[in-house]
């Protein structure tokens, strides 16, 4: 019985959750925790207690909405939509207190304010895998508007189709592609110095 259940698809697990099966939720968490946690961390600027809290909230929402879930779209699209809603609300409330885009975490998890970044004195191409590169990428990512950041993450890391990304963001497919285009241009401008080949 247990081995049969191990192979259950996401939709089956959600149906079991709708009937109050907590074990189904646990299985779903184990399957998708890295996807949700990684997305949240990327969106809010780093891993930590906030990312953990938000990722937990995503799964609790999924649990509560399971009984009304209709599998019209892929489960991961629904999961990412719930994640987006929570992350965007979190960032909006945080930006009321401070300018969220101005904050980026360094390697030690400490916040770096934009405009107060240490000046890179040596040629960044000398150490492309070094801290400077990671810091520059984090900073470039933090400068991207929320929707652009999410599109890039979902496309590059989650390898989602634009039709799915469009559903997650509540925009048209063309709109999602346009966000990707603008994100790419923004990133090119910010990370130009790290390009190994001339543009």
């Amino acid at each position, binding site marked *: 019985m247990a081995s049969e259940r191990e192979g259950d698809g996401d939709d089956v697990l959600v149906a079991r959750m709708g009937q109050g099966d*907590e074990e189904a939720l646990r299985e779903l968490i184990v399957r998708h*925790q890295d996807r949700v*946690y*990684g997305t949240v961390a990327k969106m809010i600027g780093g891993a930590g207690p906030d990312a953990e809290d938000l990722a*937990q909230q995503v799964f*609790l929402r999924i649990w509560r909405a399971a009984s009304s879930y209709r599998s019209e779209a892929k489960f991961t699209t629904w999961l990412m939509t719930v994640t987006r809603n929570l992350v965007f609300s979190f960032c909006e409330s945080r930006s009321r207190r401070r300018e969220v885009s101005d904050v980026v975490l360094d390697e030690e998890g400490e916040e770096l304010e934009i405009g107060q970044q240490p000046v890179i004195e040596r040629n960044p191409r000398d150490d492309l895998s070094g801290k400077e590169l*990671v810091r520059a990428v*984090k900073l470039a990512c933090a400068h991207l508007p929320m929707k652009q950041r999410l599109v890039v993450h979902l496309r590059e890391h989650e390898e989602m189709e634009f039709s799915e990304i469009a559903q997650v963001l509540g925009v048209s497919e063309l709109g999602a592609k346009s966000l*990707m285009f603008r994100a790419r241009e923004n*990133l090119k401008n910010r990370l130009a110095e790290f390009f190994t080949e001339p543009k």
Partner: protein
Amino acid sequence: MKMTRNDEGDRLGPELGRLWAADPVAKAPPWFAAKTMARLRREEEKKRGWLGLPRWALIGTGAAILAVGWLRWESQPTVGDAELFAALDAMVEEDREIRWWAGL
């Protein structure tokens, strides 16, 4: 089907993609599932009140009892002013008559 990075129209492209990947995506901590399940149970427990009944059921029952009590109180028979003063007048009149007979 896994897509390749050669279609720059849809993706970051090889150069930007490599740079983007330099900042790896965080993985969930090992305790994540256990903590989420514990939080779920804690929140479900919080939603329950006495005798394992959901809190909303207890609040609803309490509100219903108060509403019924209030309605019953409101529907009690009332004595109008005219009736009340007529009864008092009758008592005063009767008292006066008794006093007259008693020679007071």
